[in-house]
Structures are given as C-alpha cells and as structure tokens.
C-alpha cells in the first residue's frame, strides 16, 4: 500500500523524484520568502509568469522560456511602479499581480483547449513529468542552492534589517534582487510539476513549519525540505489510492503538517507555562484549601 505503487509504476516514481526536487528547491527559496516576508511577492511572481507561459504555449515555444520572460517583466514592473509612483511595495505588487493574471487568462482564452491549458498551468501535471523536466528541476536546485550558499550572509542580514545589510557593506538592492531571482527560478522550474498556484504552498508551508522548530537557518531549510519531501510522498499516495489531483494533494498535506506542528508547539508552550507557574507558586493551591 505504501511502497507498491512506486515499485510498480514508473510514472509515479519519476513524479516522486520530481516532487522531492521541487520540495528541496522550495525549502531553500521558501526559507528566505518566509523570513523576509516575501510571501505576497512570491505569490505575485507565481501568477506573473502566467501570461508568459500562455503566450509560449500559443506560439509553440517552451513554457519555461515564457515563464522566465513573465517573471522578469513582473520583477521589473514592481521595481518601477514602487519607485516612480511612490506607492508602497504591496500596492505595486498587487496591481501587477492582478494585471498579469488577467492578461494570462485572456491569452489562454484564445486557445481551443482553454480550461485544460489553464488548469495545467495553475495546478501542474506532476504525473506527466518526464526525464528532461527532472534535469531542468535539478539544474534549478543547483542554481538556487549555490546562490543561497554564497549569499547566505547578506541574505541573513536582509532578513533582519535592510539597514544592517547596507551598513555591513552589502548592497541591499543587489541582494534583494538576487533573493527574488532565486524565488523566480524556483517558480519557473516548478510550474510544470506543481503549477504556478500550488508552488506558493510548497514555498511557504514547509518553511513556516521549519520556522516553528528551528534555531538556525540551516536547520529550518532541512526541516522544510523534509516536510516537503514527506508531503510529496504522502500526497502522491493519496492521489494514487483515491484518484485525486496530485499537486493539490501534496500542497494540502504540507498545510496539514504545518497545522499539526503549530498545534503541537502551542500545546507545548501552554504546558511549559503551567509548569513554570506551578514552580513559581507551589503552595497557592494548598493555601486555598486551608482557607
């Protein structure tokens, strides 16, 4: 029941490997998304690639190229709108987010297979992944991993405070853009497996779970990768046995794991608080009996 589906089905095995590669890539990029509070721009990047992919599909070009162009337009647009028009970052992101999403849906609606195409872009097609997709995912993982390792110090400073990064001799603009680039690379490489809508779940939920337990950034990335990989395995099993959408099953599993982890930490905190209070006032209960 737990191993057999993967042993007997090559498509499922490839899907599992692809999902784990996505999980590890998302764990690295997602950790910085969560710590620097970039969830909204991550969401916008995930949707900003939609018109690029849709145009590429209509022109018969690789969706990856379209996604790359879409994310570049999105990143440049956010930068220009927030600087030139003195709007807050999230207003600029929101404007471009809905604009790009609407443009993507309009372009896709020109296709004769509109619903199928849109669904494939938004939710991915994990069970349709082939070996060339795996290679692309592996390349993305190496790029994201190497950049995050080299830039770990300025990234960490940026997560604390932009001013601290700048006064430590690192260009906050350069490393902020580099951080956005690794998020964009993750989105571009992951859209075929989990889709542009669900990749955000893989970016945020496992890293948020890691943040609950970790005392170090490296531990947070490790926990996020573990949660993402376990969710991929569990989600694929659920999808196989109950004939449900694979990408959605995986992302829902990551969110459920976060919910369980958050409940556990809250209960643990409450118990610790109670035992601390009892330690501070050991006789208060006995005193009430005497009175």
């Amino acid at each position, binding site marked *: 029941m737990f191993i057999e589906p993967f042993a007997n089905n090559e498509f499922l095995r490839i899907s599992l490997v692809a999902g784990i590669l996505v999980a590890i890539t998302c764990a690295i990029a997602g950790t910085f998304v969560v710590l620097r509070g970039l969830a909204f721009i991550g969401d916008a990047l995930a949707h900003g690639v939609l018109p690029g992919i849709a145009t590429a599909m209509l022109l018969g070009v690789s969706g990856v190229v379209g996604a790359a162009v879409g994310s570049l337009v999105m990143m440049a647009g956010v930068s220009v709108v927030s600087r030139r028009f003195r709007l807050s970052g999230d207003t600029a992101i929101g404007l471009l987010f809905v604009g790009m999403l609407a443009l993507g849906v309009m372009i896709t609606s020109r296709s004769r297979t509109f619903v199928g195409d849109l669904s494939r872009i938004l939710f991915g097609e994990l069970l349709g992944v082939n070996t060339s997709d795996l290679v692309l995912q592996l390349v993305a993982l190496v790029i994201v991993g190497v950049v995050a390792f080299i830039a770990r110090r300025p990234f960490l400073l940026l997560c604390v405070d932009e*001013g601290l990064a700048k006064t430590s001799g690192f260009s906050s603009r350069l490393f902020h853009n580099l951080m956005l680039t690794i998020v964009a690379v993750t989105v571009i490489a992951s859209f075929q497996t989990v889709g542009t809508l669900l990749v955000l779940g893989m970016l945020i939920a496992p890293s948020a779970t890691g943040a609950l337990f970790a005392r170090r950034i490296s531990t947070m990335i490790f926990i996020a990768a573990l949660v993402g990989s376990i969710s991929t395995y569990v989600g694929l099993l659920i999808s196989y046995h109950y004939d449900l959408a694979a990408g959605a099953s995986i992302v829902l599993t990551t969110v459920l794991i976060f919910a369980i982890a958050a409940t556990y930490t809250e209960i643990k905190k409450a118990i610790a608080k109670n035992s601390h209070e009892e330690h501070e006032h050991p006789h208060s209960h006995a005193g009430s009996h005497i009175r």
Partner: protein
Amino acid sequence: MSSSAEFTIKTEHLAVGYSKFPIVSDISLSMQPGELLVLIGTNGSGKSTILKTMAGLLQPINGQLKILGSAAGSLPKRVAYLPQHPVSTHTLPLRVRDVVAMGRFAHLGLFKKPTTHDNQIVDNSMHLTGIGSQANNPIRDLSGGQQQRTHLAQVLTRQAEVLLLDEPTAGLDINGRKLVAELIASERARGVTVVMATHELQDAENANTVMLLAQRVVSIGAPEDALRDEYLRECFGFTQPH
C-alpha cells in the same frame, strides 16, 4: 587608532533629512578619536536622521560629511551602527550567538571563514554585555532588554573605530543603563569615537560634546554650555532640577 584622518567625524554646514526635505540644517562639528558626542532631543527632533546619515543610510541633503576621512557608509569595517529599533530578530530562528556573530560579516564578506580570532571577539562581546550564558538560546525567547544587549554585543563585535548608537539604553533597566555607560567608557578608552542619540539628559554627563536638537541645532558644545536652562526650555519646555 585612526591615523589616516585628522578627525574621525567632520561635518560642515551639513543638512540631513528625507527625500530632499531637510529636518536639521547647518550642522558643523569635528570629533577626534575617543570622543563622545551625545545628541539629545524629543521624538522627531532629528537625532536618528543625523545618525542614519552618518551611517550612510541617508544621503546628506547639503554640506560636507566625512567619517574617518571618507564618505559616510563607505567604511563598513570601521564604522558600526545600532539602529533605534533593531526589530525582526524576534521572529527569526536564530540563536543569540548567531545574531552577535553577524557583527563580523562586514569583515568576513561573502567568502572568508570565521577564524578563532573572530570567534573570540564574538564570545568576548557576549561576555561584556552579560549575555554569554544565553549564547545558545533562541533570540526570540529573550526579553526586550536581553535582545537589546544582544544587539549591543553585535555592534561591539564589529571592532569599529566609530560607533553610532541610536538610543542604546532603550528597554534596559538600571543595571543595563550602567552597563552601556561602562561599555561606552571602555570603547572610548581604546580610542573609539562614539555618537549616541538619547532622550536622557544624564547620558550627557561624560560627553565631550552635546548637541541639543529640535528639528534644528538648539545648542552645541560642552555639556555645561549646551545644556543651559534657556536651551533646555526651548527644546523640552522645562529645565533640569538643580
């Protein structure tokens, strides 16, 4: 310590502010190694704006500003800045030691590995600020005062020649305030120039120069001159009890 410059900090008719709108104008001063400049004023008086400009986070609107003979913000290894509210760390999964060690990043850059010497500096800074016993605890579990001590330790870890401290005693109890005064005295003794923003008049006791601010320079000079009753009345609306 700073043989390359005659003055560690020198300003001439400096105007500071945001987006070309000056908050404080015509600041002229010069400081030498080991001196303490205390900026005093109410909220919004321009203290933090001056410090941010000296740290290189804001561009001077007008006039000249040289730190150790160079433009502000160009010598990260030699100038350390403690912001007013060093936030965010309380949500991050970081140990106290990791936050303090971030003070060495200016020296390490992207690729250098921390040496035994770097680790000793980190340990010593934690010891000096009284948080050595918390080194392996998550910073988010510490009290506000302990977090402030952690950020102070991070600034000391830079081993800078100029310290820019924006309300370093904020959130600290009496012992903490005493500790900050002792740390500043020991840094000055080894030739470090310190600029500190504060609301507290008693922080000016040991200063070489005090600048009283109210969106302009009300007074500047030795404490006994700059804190005269007429200036305090103008700045705060009251005078010191004698």
